[in-house]
């Protein structure tokens, strides 16, 4: 459920289909600016707040999904 939400938010933001395997650099709009905007979108859509390091380090859908799962527990 949460994974699906993350995928939707990322696809919407980047205007391209994003899968569980997608990571930074794989699609045109996902560069360092895209990385920041992805976290801004995730925080606003999912009503969460992430730390500085997570925003820099979690640069694949896989890592983001597990970060959010960890947050939930």
């Amino acid at each position: 459920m949460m994974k699906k939400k993350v995928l939707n938010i990322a696809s919407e933001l980047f205007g391209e289909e994003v899968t569980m395997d997608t990571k930074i650099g794989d699609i045109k709009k996902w560069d360092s600016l895209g990385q920041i905007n992805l976290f801004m979108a995730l925080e606003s859509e999912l009503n969460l707040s992430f730390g500085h390091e997570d925003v820099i380090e979690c640069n694949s859908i896989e890592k983001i999904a597990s970060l959010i799962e960890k947050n939930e527990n």
Partner: protein
Amino acid sequence: MKIELVSNINMDSIKFYLKDYQLLGSCDFGNYMIDLIDNNSQLHKSEAEIIFLFLDFDELNEDIKDVLSAVDIFIENTGKTVIMNTLASSSNYIDTFLNIRLKQELNANLNLVNFADKNQNVLLFDFSKLLRKSNFIDEKYWYMARIKFSKSGFESISRELSNLLNAYKYGSKKVLVLDMDNTLWGGVIGEEEIKLSNDGVGKIYLDFQKKIKQLKGLGVLLVACSKNNYNDGIKGLEHINSILTEDDFIIKKINWNNKASNIEEIAKELNLGYESLVFIDDSPMERSHVKEVIPNIIVPEFPKDIYSINSWFLGVVGDFFSKISLTTEDLNKEEQYLAKRQRDFAIKKTSYEDFLKTLNIEIEFQINNNEHIERYAQMTQKTNQFNLTTKRYNIAEMRSFVESSFYDVISVNYKDKYANEGVTGLVIVNILDKYVEIDSFLLSCRILKRGVESSIFSKLSKLYFDKDIVGFYVETEKNRQTKKLYETHGFKEIDKNKFIMSVK
């Protein structure tokens, strides 16, 4: 259309939210003054038609007058259009009650507004209005990555920018078509006391009417399109609290016709394409019907929560009625259309048949077809206005007519360039030795005044070429418009309300 973005902060995130326009990013932020003045800069060479110069007031180090002269030089050199924002302090600043910052802000904006007024190539949008929305700024990402606004902040800026670009490129829509009950006031006029007042729920509608009146002042034409008795609708506009009056509407279609046909007439009378029309109605059914029949018309959703009607309408105005300039033509538009409509009416009287020709009407007859028996029966049950004898039949009776060799059941399929209306006419003929008798003759309201009756008569005279045709008119409350049908088609009245068309 390509847009170049220039700013004193990092505004590149807009590219994630600005749809329909391509944002080039050939200029680094911070260098905008040099970019503007230096005629060898990337900005001067840019292929973009429009430059979006976003100035963040908090980070602005230059005097606004210097910025404006740089913009002036740039426009003189390139002839391009520059979009600018009003300045607003978006972060906390130390001011106590001395209002130092406020004075700076007002001064700078006064300079900006005057500059934009004098310079046709400068388009200015009110940024402080956007900034009032909550959660506009995201401090974390500002300090982390020098990205100042939140997702919703960038979304608002992008929407405003795109409204401005649309207004620049396409201009504004021209006509606002308005429903009345539960749209211009609360409740149903003629059935209850309507809500339109300075307090309570009535204030929602009063404020809404004020905005509509303002929009009219900007040259937007107002049209009423409402299912009411005409007199009831007018009574609503004559209500003591009504801001909008009868004269504010250039056309009033207050009747029981379906709204799509009313809107077809409106577009025709104003000689405008459907894409110039915005239709507002609280009823989801009416909205989807109109949108289905006329795909090009703009039909915004209407808020379910009436308390948000006014903020919703501001969005509608931004999306469809944004204007970058106001011409005298805008202000005289109503008069021009009125004159034009009068001419059209004069022409219309002589050439209604020409108008029909433009509809590309196709009529198809089916005789004793057993696939539509249910529809035939239903039509005899439901048709009141164009129904010569108003005889009601059920499905079994209708089946016996279709199967009997003493009766013909002739159905009419109507189609024109706007819609395929399907089975919309029905004639039941009793075949006797020496003559035939028209037992029932009915047409759906949707296809009246299109010459369908005449086609039916010519079909009948071909089918029964060797027999006299006899028809009856049975008067009811509702079918008076058909009283003269037989006579106008060459029948002779041989008895009261009994008509004949002889073979010879």
